[in-house]
């Protein structure tokens, strides 16, 4: 008992931590980078005086000024383009979509300018921009406010996409995205902003291109990201009770895929289940299935199962909304099927 007590005290002195919620972790990462580099600035609707629709930028306008945390009019295509122009001329802007779905209005700028200008200018101009915002299926937000844009943007060449899922990786990915010279889209989820975790006090970043091992295992590889990570972990508890040993990987990097971490897992378990929130058709899971089949076909003992949301606009009614999204019970059934 005494020894354990001493170790605990020593550990928290050596590795001090503090507890916060996911949206606070995003803000902390953003604030630290804004202090570190005066070129980092934020643009978006209600990010300044209101502090952001999910309070990610709360207090930053008071601290850094109205120009560094800029309230824009409701003109997504235009302020995204403005951010790109600012990035080309030396700033490091963060564009916030109040809801990710609104960024569909900025698709022109994201695809044609953000993704392409470094290429078409022969490398003369870089676009170190971070585009972020809340997306995903929430609680009865309705079809247009429950969109998963990662599947639409994944084909755009020249951009990277990451999805955060914990306060630790939210802060780490935010900081890494801000330091990257490439344009990065950071996907946050509306239902994960109030997750609590103790994160390190010292400066850290998460690698933009790496996946995260959530739970090592032997029987099956479950690949997931964002909110579905929690449905998977819930299913994992049930599976462990039934005698299964699932390996859970949060892919985090939606574009490009970390084929090393994923591949090592496939080579070990020989069975793959993908659990995602985006639509079945043309989703991240569809691309991932193709990538795994192409690269690791010989290691598979069973066809890959991909559980995605139904290809329907998200209904408003709560019960209907639940039915369109993958639930833990379906994950358990899929693993049992794979391991037969």
């Amino acid at each position, binding site marked *: 008992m005494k020894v354990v007590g001493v170790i605990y005290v020593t550990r928290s002195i050596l590795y001090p931590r503090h507890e916060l919620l996911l949206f606070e972790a995003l803000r902390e990462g953003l604030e630290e980078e804004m202090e570190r580099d005066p070129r980092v600035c934020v643009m978006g609707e209600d990010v300044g005086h209101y502090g952001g629709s999910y309070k990610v930028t709360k207090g930053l306008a008071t601290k850094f000024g109205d120009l560094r945390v800029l309230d824009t009019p409701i003109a997504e295509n235009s302020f995204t383009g403005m951010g790109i122009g600012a990035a080309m001329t030396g700033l490091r802007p963060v564009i916030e979509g109040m809801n990710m779905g609104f960024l569909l209005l900025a698709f022109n700028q994201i695809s044609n300018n953000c993704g392409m200008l470094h*290429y078409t200018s022969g490398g003369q101009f870089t676009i170190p921009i971070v585009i972020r915002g809340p997306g995903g299926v929430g609680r009865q937000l309705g079809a247009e406010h429950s969109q998963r844009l990662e599947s639409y943007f994944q084909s755009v060449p020249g951009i990277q996409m990451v999805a955060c899922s914990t306060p630790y990786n939210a802060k780490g990915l935010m900081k890494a995205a801000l330091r990257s010279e490439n344009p990065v889209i950071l996907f946050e989820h509306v239902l994960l902003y109030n997750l609590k975790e103790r994160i390190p006090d010292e400066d850290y970043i998460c690698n933009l291109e790496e996946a995260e091992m959530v739970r090592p295992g032997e029987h099956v590889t479950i690949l997931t990201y964002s909110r579905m990570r929690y449905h998977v972990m819930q299913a994992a508890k049930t599976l462990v009770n039934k005698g299964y040993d699932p390996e859970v990987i949060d892919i985090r990097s939606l574009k490009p895929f970390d084929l090393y971490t994923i591949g090592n897992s496939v080579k070990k378990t020989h069975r793959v289940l993908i659990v995602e929130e985006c639509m079945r058709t043309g989703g991240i899971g569809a691309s991932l299935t193709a990538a795994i089949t192409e690269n690791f076909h010989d290691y598979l003992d069973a066809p890959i199962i991909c559980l995605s949301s139904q290809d329907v606009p998200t209904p408003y009614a709560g019960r209907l909304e639940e039915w369109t999204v993958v639930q833990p019970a379906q994950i358990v059934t899929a693993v049992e099927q794979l391991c037969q």
Partner: protein
Amino acid sequence: MSKLFGKITGCYRGQGGSMHMFSREHNVLGGFTFIGEGIPVAIGATFTSKYKREVLKEADCDHVTLVFFGDGTCNNGQLFELREVAKEAIGRARSGEGPTLAKCDTYRFRGHSLADSDELRDPDLKAIDKKIDEVVEDAVEFADESPVPPRSQPLENVFADPKGFGIGPDGRYKCEDPKFTKGTTQV
């Protein structure tokens, strides 16, 4: 001319086309194929000028941004959205003058594109045309003699940081694969 011929000596090394006019050296931020989409980028450049003065305290920063577009682009919504963005964001500290829209009546050289046969033009300008032809011929000769871009060119400049292509199955970043520099790897 080399750029239009897709040669390596062109400004964008075969990667940009006829609408992609960029020069970092001369602060030309680009030609934009969907013409209206360059207007917000121009506002961004203007924003940077203001930011440099007010936030980064570079008091001698006096950059002015010019953006050009045709009458067709005036239909584009981004233009009207940006009037308000510019006024609110950039003009906040000014005396209320806001951005200036300069309408220039100018000479239309030819039709919009190859699809426009320009039938409404007055055709009496042969001498000037001949002189222009000579200049153009010289440029064509230079472009013809320039080499084509190498096999590796399409993979360059997709990302400022090529780690963006990700980690391959062998654990190395794809950009570290020798086939990447040769241009034969699949991305």
